[in-house]
């Protein structure tokens, strides 16, 4: 295992560049596949870049290593971000991304079970990732292993009761090596999150459920990496990072416009987006 990465101070510039690369690839994929959930994927690219390039002890050559850290994309609709990250990390060839959502491919609109290395859990139905993560963390405890488990949730996902069942469970079990990151972009599929089910005050809610809860700019890759590296953080509690984000982040004409929850970009829009991201 590459243990060094755990303690290495994050290189914010490199992480930022990695996030831009992810965004550029995801936008291409969305266009090629005419697939939905682009804005949801863009909103979590900084989190995904920070965790894959600044936090996780993982080795693409040993994707099933018992001691690896686990990352569960509980907001499975951001699958494109996960696929691009795994391909860039070397879990499978980057060319595989060209098959995204194509007939007969392995990269469906939500991450599949047992088809590709690096995908810890098939998600897409919300509210499943954290309970699974708690089970993984407990297995580590039972076996005397100290790996960490990260679950990335959407803000809309916090609507699901199973999230709060798991939150109380993790707190009772003192699963201090479990970390939730909420991609709090203030939108769910068809409406503002807080006008749908009241999440606010979200950090306080997690705190009230027994978690060590912290709020951050969800696009500050350096701070995200530091917060996630610092798990367990000595509090004896699981850690919730409420990451304030912008849906569609990185492309001016997509930012905070919820039409991009379902819309896919045209070829011209891909070029425009790549320019804004500094990729061309």
């Amino acid at each position, binding site marked *: 295992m590459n243990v060094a990465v755990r303690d290495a101070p994050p290189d914010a510039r490199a992480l930022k560049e990695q996030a831009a690369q992810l965004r550029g690839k995801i936008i291409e994929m969305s266009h090629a596949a005419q697939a939905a959930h682009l804005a949801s994927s863009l909103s979590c690219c900084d989190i995904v870049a920070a965790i894959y390039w600044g936090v996780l002890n993982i080795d693409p050559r040993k994707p099933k290593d*018992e001691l690896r850290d686990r990352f569960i994309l509980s907001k499975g609709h951001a699958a494109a971000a996960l696929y691009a990250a795994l391909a860039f990390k070397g879990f499978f060839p980057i060319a595989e991304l060209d098959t995204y959502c194509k007939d007969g491919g392995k990269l469906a609109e939500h991450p599949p*079970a*047992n088809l590709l290395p690096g995908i*810890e*859990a*098939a998600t897409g*139905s919300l*509210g*499943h990732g*954290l*309970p*699974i*993560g*708690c*089970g*993984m*963390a*407990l*297995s*580590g*405890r*039972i*076996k005397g292993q100290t790996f960490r488990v990260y679950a990335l949730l959407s803000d809309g996902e916090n609507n699901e*009761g*199973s999230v709060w*069942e*798991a939150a*109380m*469970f993790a707190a*009772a*079990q003192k699963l201090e090596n479990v970390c939730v990151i909420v991609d709090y972009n203030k939108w769910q599929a068809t409406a503002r999150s807080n006008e749908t089910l009241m999440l606010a005050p979200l950090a306080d809610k997690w705190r009230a459920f027994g978690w060590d809860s912290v709020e951050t700019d969800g696009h500050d890759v350096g701070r995200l990496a530091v917060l996630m590296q610092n798990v367990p953080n000595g509090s004896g509690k699981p850690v919730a990072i409420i990451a304030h984000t912008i849906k569609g982040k990185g492309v001016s004409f997509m930012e905070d416009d919820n039409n991009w929850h379902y819309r896919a970009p045209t070829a011209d829009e891909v070029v425009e987006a790549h320019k804004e991201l500094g990729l061309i």
Partner: protein
Amino acid sequence: MRNAFADELTKLGNADARVVMLSGDIGNRLFDKFKTAHPSRFLNCGVAEQNMMGVAAGMAMSGLRPVAYTITPFITSRCLEQIRTDACYHELPVTIVAVGAGLSYAGLGPTHHACEDVAFLRAIPNMVVVCPGDAWEVRGTLRAAFKQDKPIYIRMGKKGEPVIHKEVPPDFAIGKAITVQDGEDVCLLSSGNMLPEAIEAAHRLKEKRVSACVVSFHTVKPLDELCLAEAFGMFKLVATIEEHTLLGGFGSAVAEWVVDKAVKTEAFLRFGTPDLFFKKSGEQEYAREELGLTGHQIADRVLKALG
């Protein structure tokens, strides 16, 4: 059945460090021996079954052999999506054990009745569904469950049911029905906790000079097709018996098999609960009587069908 389950689980847990017991806040004192021997491998997951099932899946993904246990409706329909998506879609060795099959908890009312669970669970790919007929079959099923690498649903009665076998049947296997007593005229295929009623029905039929074969057809999925072929080939009447709705359970599975295999049937009866919520108070025996599921009622209907 539940005491046999707790005892057998403790033995299996002693032998295999991967075995973890998850309880949905039931079984007060039932698991004391397991808890004492393996405190880190017993978890009371509270009244939160969706989480419990997800936790079980996460453990199985990490190489453990979790058993998730609570009252039937809560370990099945309450967390059906976690069973389907987390356990079955990922094809994980999660053992789901339900207590209170069918009308076992009749007195607690329809919230605690469980007459649809087999229909729900057998529709899910990768799932194995076993309804043991007595405490020995519970033990046999549990032993077999840990030897396979698939999700499995074990549907138990409660406690104090008649014990039919004298030990775990030596050739007990998931998917292999057990002939409990031989007969020549009719074949009673019983699934789960109805086995004592089936035996009682055979006894009554014998008094009327009808010889009944009784089979404990514990595994509803996968079906023992060899046993079915023999039953429909040899007997002038075959009956399925279960404490479960006639929509989608064991009897339905057999009916599907009969149609799909174009099997010729002389007479085929299905005994099960009707498509309704049984709202009256009263214990299991009363509910069975009301719904036509006692041994003597089964025998009467068989005799009528024989003419």
